[in-house]
């Protein structure tokens, strides 16, 4: 700590240069905070522990292919399965193309499989008994200012109605909320009655998008999944049954490998940052060679000079990273307040801070090492005489 004023004085030697470098570091870590927040949100979505006792059965050929409704009763009879429900992707749009959110037609018992969602019993019953009924997550309702009793028109992108209309109008009868605040991202969804959907749609009637099953014993997952898949072996609708976690992960990876994209962007940003701050540090040390020689003259050892220069670089990165992460945290709070779960973002919490500061320390050491070694190796008499 007693050397902190020396480090600070060195950083403040060229205030404008330090400030501009800090801005670059800050911008890089603001981006890091936001992208890591997105990555964490996708990870949370695919590692939702609440779904470990649920299986999802989809067509083995493609998620987009349907399964016959006749499987419903047969899956129910599989030993180890305690509850079965089903759903179909709808893909509706509300008012504008930009207002996209997941919308699904679900069986009336579908929400029973998701105890992690809180839906008042009266609203649950209303959903069962209202043909055009729909329930939505709280985040989605807040995003569009919906309240119970509202009529919500969705534009179909896949399933027109029998009369040719693309407009499906639903009555909002319930708003559910995720019990775990960490899973608020899952509230960005719109459910409506499968019966209404199946009766009114122009094609595909009687077919199911996917089945969801709850199992009695989560240690028997593989066995039950194999038994379900065995029901349709060598048929034209073979199934692939997997845990909800695996299914979500596979679904997310169909959009893109978020981890890879985030990693690639950050690698490019940090590579540029290393070049930039490395140049700044090299310049800062080069112009301070006589001062470093004086410090060595006074008795500072080569190792202490090395340590001071490395600390200088790490402190610069750490300050920029901390401010960047604070801004990222604020931005995430702001975006979530404004758009709800429209953009998947996790709060910038301890894990992101830890990763960010560790990254700052590593980059600080990388950019500081060459100038610091130069400072460490300088010969006092040469440096003092300007050689």
């Amino acid at each position, binding site marked *: 700590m*007693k*050397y902190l*004023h*020396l480090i600070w*004085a*060195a950083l*403040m*030697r060229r205030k404008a240069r330090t400030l501009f470098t800090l801005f670059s570091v800050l911008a890089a870590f603001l981006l890091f905070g936001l992208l890591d927040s997105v990555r964490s949100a996708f990870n949370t979505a695919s590692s939702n522990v609440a779904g470990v006792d649920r299986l999802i059965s989809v067509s083995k050929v493609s998620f987009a292919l349907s399964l016959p409704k006749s499987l419903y009763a047969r899956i129910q009879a599989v030993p180890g399965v305690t509850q079965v429900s089903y759903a179909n992707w709808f893909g509706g749009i509300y008012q504008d193309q930009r207002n996209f959110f997941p919308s699904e037609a679900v069986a009336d018992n579908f929400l029973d499989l998701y105890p992690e969602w809180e839906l008042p019993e009266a609203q649950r019953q209303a959903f069962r008994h209202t043909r055009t009924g729909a329930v939505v997550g709280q985040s989605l309702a807040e995003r569009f200012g919906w309240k119970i009793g509202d009529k919500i028109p969705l534009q179909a992108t896949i399933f027109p109605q029998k009369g040719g209309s693309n407009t499906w109008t639903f009555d909002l009868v319930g708003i559910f909320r995720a019990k775990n605040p960490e899973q608020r991202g899952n509230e960005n969804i719109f459910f409506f009655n499968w019966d209404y959907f199946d009766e009114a749609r122009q094609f595909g009637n009687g077919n199911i998008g996917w089945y969801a099953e709850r199992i009695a014993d989560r240690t028997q997952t593989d066995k039950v999944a194999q038994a379900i898949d065995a029901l349709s072996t060598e048929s034209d609708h073979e199934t692939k049954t997997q845990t909800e976690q695996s299914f979500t992960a596979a679904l997310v990876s169909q959009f893109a490998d978020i981890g890879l994209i985030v990693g690639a962007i950050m690698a490019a940003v940090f590579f540029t940052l290393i070049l930039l701050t490395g140049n700044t540090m090299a310049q800062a040390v080069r112009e301070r060679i*006589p*001062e470093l020689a*004086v*410090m*060595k*003259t*006074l*008795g*500072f*050892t*080569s*190792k202490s000079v090395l340590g001071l220069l490395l600390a200088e670089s790490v402190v610069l990165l750490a300050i920029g990273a901390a401010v960047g992460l604070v801004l990222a945290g604020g931005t995430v709070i702001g975006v979530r307040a404004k758009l709800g779960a429209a953009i998947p973002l996790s709060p910038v919490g301890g894990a992101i801070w830890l990763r960010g500061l560790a990254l700052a320390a590593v980059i600080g050491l990388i950019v500081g090492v060459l100038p610091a070694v130069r400072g460490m190796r300088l010969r*006092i*008499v040469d440096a*003092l*005489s300007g050689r």
Partner: protein
Amino acid sequence: MGTLVEIRNLSKTYERGKQKVEVLHHIDLDIEEGDFVALMGPSGSGKTTLLNLIGGLDSPTDGSIAVAGERIETLGEDALAKWRASNVGFVFQFYNLLPMLSARKNVELPLLLTKLSAAERRRKASVALELVGLSDRAAHKPSELSGGQQQRVAIARAIVSDPTLLVCDEPTGDLDRQSAVDVLTLMQGLNREYGKTLVMVTHDPKAAEYAHHTLHLDKGTLVTEPEPAPA
């Protein structure tokens, strides 16, 4: 008082590319404790090289240097740095203060290497600044001080850890006449009142008059035998 600096058969050769330049040739010299020695000679005569060797900033090619009985040419880099921190104070021609630090923080710099508390470091720095007559300039940065004041801050920095030996490389070379007189008077006082041993490189014969005696170097050789130390 005994001999503080004992130099025997000291040689220094620099390599400039393929060329070898012998700067000092077989120097023998004793400097008594409490002495004030001026080193004079033309440019390139080896004055600064000799001063650097006495101050432990450089190592000889041959020969030995003992300061207070310690053979400093045998010390490793880190040990030599620690030895410098506690035994030698340095004063340079261009002051060499750290521009971002206040006068007090500059003076405190050598004390960062000790185990003294922050309060103790501050107190000692204040005493040193008072000694050089700059208590009222403690909070000023070097750029806010005159050349003479900066050199007095540098002297305060050199004496703050109470070293026995002060090595001064043309301490008045960048100063006007009055400031030079002030600095030399201060150095003389440190020698007379506090018993510091001073070795000063200078081009200025008037500055050399403040020393007890003057040594002349020419082409790396002492051309004047050291005068006996005053009784």
